[in-house]
């Protein structure tokens, strides 16, 4: 999917490709792209978002749980999640695809 719109992104399924591994530490999540050999650091909030993205059927489905966990409004989480997804996509750390039918 080439540069999806915000709405398309929220309706998509986000997954880590096989060439990406990550490990969670106390204050940071390290994401390793095995193709480039580059390590990337996510702060603990972004790390929790990544965990939620992996579990949720779509990006949008991750929003309610994160809003509850962080005690912030859903639109704010939605916006932050979109920014994170675009950053991860740009670095080849996630792939997005159309969500499978429920």
């Amino acid at each position, binding site marked *: 999917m080439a540069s999806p719109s915000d709405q398309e992104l929220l309706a998509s399924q986000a997954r880590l490709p096989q060439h990406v591994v990550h490990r969670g*530490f106390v*204050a*940071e999540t*390290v994401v390793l792209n095995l193709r480039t050999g580059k390590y990337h650091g996510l702060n603990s909030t972004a790390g929790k978002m990544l965990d939620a993205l992996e579990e949720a059927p779509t990006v949008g489905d991750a929003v309610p749980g994160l809003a509850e966990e962080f005690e912030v409004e859903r639109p704010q989480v939605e916006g932050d999640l979109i920014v994170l997804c675009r950053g991860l996509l740009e670095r080849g750390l996630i792939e997005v695809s159309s969500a499978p039918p429920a």
Partner: protein
Amino acid sequence: MPTQERATLFAAFGLLLEVDPRIDVAGLARPRAGAPDEGAAATPTRVSLDPAELERRWAPVGTTARRMRELRQGDRVALSVDLAESAGYLLQAVGVGRVLISPDGTELLCDPLPESPEWTFILPAQALPLAATLRGLEVFHAAAVVLGPGAVLIAGDPGAGKSSLAAALVRNGAPFLGDDAIALEPGEGGLVAHPSVAALYLRSAEHDRLSSAEREALGSPELSVGKRRYGPETAADAVPFGALFLLERGDRGAPIERIEEVDPFALLAATFNLSVRTPERLTRQLDVIEDLVRTGRVYRLRVLPGLDATRLAEAVERCLAAVAR
């Protein structure tokens, strides 16, 4: 017909080494009786003096090799590592010579420069840690000794005082594990640290600061690569991981504190080999970092003004004694 001398077996960095008798590496130890018969130690890594074979393997592929690492001194390259997938990793040290390490780390071909009589230092300093990395171990840029039941690793920037602190701990009776590179291996019971070579290098300034009694406790040094090389008593076996101390300069605060939120990138930066970038190695590197953090025994060790290596060693001993209680 000349008879060929048989290679001699040694052990270092978790590897069993079959070393050409013409190669004399200071501080290499013989493998202990009943050495492990599986893992990286099961199949020896052969270390041969064979410039012709090195050239035969490297010449056809050298032009397509990728530069994986380069260390510069001023404008010139002092050390480099190039990778050609079929031949392996070519380590070149200016004024020293070349070592070709096979892709699986089981063979090292050496081509020293005739004008470099001390060339073999490059083996424990660079080539063997690279081979150990290729064979599944994770090597840290650290000095290490054994305190109590565990290996104590001391990492930090060059010149931070790793060797001096290790020397002070050895003077107090701790068996030595290694000076500059320590191989860690994940096992069922957790990480273990393997002895490297019995060679501890002190800068002349540090050597000059030692009292005669302190020098005596370390044994007789030899002058080597511009430093004093001691050959302290070294642990014969792998030792379970005990603690990691990250040395840093400081001007205030407690000398030692346990790091609650370990920065994984600080530990990644302390790993030794940046040349091996295979997916398997990169994943293992991250796994070992995770294992280290999980132990909860990563400490910051501040080198405060007026705190010399002897007092730092006492602080480390007190810290570990308190943890053990």
